[in-house]
């Protein structure tokens, strides 16, 4: 089945990207590709089952929400990392005003 292979290829691409990418944003994207590969595998397996198995679908839905949350936290952390000085200035402005 073509989708099993697709999941494997995406997993390897994501893994490689995570390890070699220089920019941190790209590491986040790589992690998302990685989890998409795992979700793909789960759903492709669910399709093989007879009758169609709803449990992996539910699992993937939960996984998607979890990965969006982690991505959001990672992005905010990244923004804070990239502009610490500006952040502090903004904070000082706020406290002053």
């Amino acid at each position, binding site marked *: 089945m*073509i*989708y*099993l*292979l*697709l*999941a*494997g*290829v*995406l*997993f390897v*691409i*994501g893994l*490689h*990207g*995570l390890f*070699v*990418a*220089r*920019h941190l*944003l*790209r590491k986040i*994207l790589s992690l*998302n590709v990685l989890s*998409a590969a795992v*979700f*793909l*595998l789960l*759903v492709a*397996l*669910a*399709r093989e*089952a*007879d*009758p169609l*198995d*709803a*449990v992996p*679908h*539910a699992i*993937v*839905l939960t996984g*998607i*929400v979890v990965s*969006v*949350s*982690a991505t*959001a*936290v990672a*992005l*905010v*952390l990244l*923004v*804070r990392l*990239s*502009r610490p000085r*500006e*952040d502090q200035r*903004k*904070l000082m402005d*706020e406290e002053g005003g």
Partner: protein
Amino acid sequence: MGWLVLVFDGLLAAALIWLAWQATHTPGLFRSVISFIIFGLLMALAWVRLDAPDIALAEAAIGAGATGALLLSALGRLVATHEEGAPWQERRDLYFWIPAGGALLGLLTLAAWMLPSPGLGEQVQDALPESGVQNPVTAVLLNFRALDTLLEIGVLLLAAIAIWSLGRMPLPSAPAVRSPALPALGRLLFPMFVLVSAYLLWRGSHAPGGAFPAGAVMGAGGILTILAGAQPWLTGSVHGPWRMLLSLGFAAMLALALGVMALGQPFFAYPPGLAGLIVLALELAAGLSIAMSLVALYLAGQPPDHWEGEARGE
């Protein structure tokens, strides 16, 4: 027809692989982000091909909508959007990665190929009448494995708290260059978003849909109204309603899980006959909280206690 399906799958897979590579390995951050958004879009098609319309809905709402908005706004907030040179350091590492990646790929595919995947389809079908809903995915999410969903909603709330704990919003949320079209678009589209999310919520009990896509659509609508400059009630202060709305879904699920114990049921065991009603109520609360959490994630920090009038582009 058979070859058409094969060509479709092949094209889709090739495009997905290419996009994943673009997103993770080519220079230009903006291009990467756009590639990733399109990747999400095509993933929705892949889910449809794999008979998973529920996930396709979520992916359409998240991949194309929320994650895209999150990534683009983070990109706008990063100081150095331009990135010099190659996106990765050494090409020498390919001597390691090609054999290692190939071996991993081979192992994974071989293992996946060998799997019998017995699945739980039959058990889900058998228990479906007792679950109170007709859509098996909703039944698994909000009844059989409701503890997972409780924690999932918890993760969303936690992410919002985590982001607030990191500090105030890094930039005012209104665009730097004002466009008169944005507020109009926001006002025009917002009712549509509300309508569609209500529809998805109602569909959830008997067809693909439910709290998550509904919440995601609603959250997207919220982000749109913020971009259009109408958000005065979304304050980070303790007195505003936002904190309560953020925790509503999680609180409702927890209250229910613990509350049934007062009726002599075990943790999270819905009283017979009430399951359908309970699932619907939970979906409503969870949907609202999901929407609120997505907006909170988008704002990337604790919003001010009072919004200033000028920040809203009026």
